[in-house]
């Protein structure tokens, strides 16, 4: 960190750091607040099913429930496929031997 950055950091009032940190964590927690209790378990089970076929990481699956206008809600499932997974579907034998 440059000396100027260091000085600026020291001069920033601690209350504004507190406010910034609070705004970030609270907006994050509010987003999670309105999700049903079963959502984490649902995510876990979907992850287990996908893992049976594709080697995949925990954080590559995102399940979220967004309330649309009115009485409906949208369950969004976002899976980032790893590149190896796509490669194996093209040349399964070679990959298996490697």
């Amino acid at each position, binding site marked *: 960190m440059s000396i100027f950055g260091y000085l600026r950091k020291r001069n920033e*009032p*601690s*209350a*504004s750091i*507190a*406010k910034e*940190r*609070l*705004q970030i*964590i*609270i907006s994050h*927690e*509010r987003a999670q*607040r*309105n999700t049903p209790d079963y959502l984490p378990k649902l995510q876990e089970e979907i992850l287990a099913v996908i893992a049976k076929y594709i080697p995949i990481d925990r954080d590559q699956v995102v399940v979220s429930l967004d309330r649309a206008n009115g009485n409906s809600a949208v369950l969004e499932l976002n899976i980032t496929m790893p590149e190896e997974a796509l490669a194996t579907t093209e040349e399964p034998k070679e990959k298996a031997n490697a």
Partner: protein
Amino acid sequence: MANIIVVTSGKGGVGKTTSSAAISSALAMRGHKTAVIDFDIGLRNLDLIMGCERRVVYDFVNVINGDATLKQALVKDKRLPNLFILPASQTRDKDALTLEGVERVIDELSKTFDYIVCDSPAGIEAGAMMAMHFADHAIIVTNPEVSSVRDSDRILGILASKTKRAIDGRSPIKEHLLLTRYDPERVMKGDMLSVDDVQDILAIPLIGIIPESASVLKASNTGTPVVLDDNSDAGIAYQDAIARFLGEERPMRFVNAERKGILRRLFSKNKEGMTA
């Protein structure tokens, strides 16, 4: 029908019991028949703050279990004829409160009282959930400090989803922010969240700012709710807060630090030095 007010915060030590004592006393001072219930089962303390600890015979759990009538358990305040205290039980049984039992007590109190103030325990366990369950109003006691503000926001979420009004789909509980232990001098120095900061984050109407004050400890030492002390800044701030709660317009006090002249500055420095 009585108005049911829960005094809650999530975090402990922010001043819920002090505020419950002050709020219920202020309502009674203004002529409203008020009952204040201590929901902190196992850690009864409201009686001490209200100065009636030696007159407690029966408690909240005794009434729920039918071991005593409500009339027997309510402790009448010695100073204010309109004020009654229902003390918490000192039992260690975690399941001593039941929702049905609490509802029965609140229903019975509703017949004769104007206001029922529920002093919530800290946390989000059964006692806190029951204290807020039947509420019409929630007074959220918050300190200008990160953990208190975060917990208050969490409590706001629970109020909006887990209480009777939310479950029944009625109009939501009215939320009121009470900022306590406020130190305008430290706010000016930038070392403490300001009232505007806290309001920006929590986004609920403010009913009062209670300054950090030596008179609060003095009041609890003697068992006199601080609101009865007309010479105390905190006491005056609580009176203002309740006036606003009841719909009066009053300008906020104790927001800015009083300007000290150089002589007073020197004087107060000396005083600090002497006590240290």
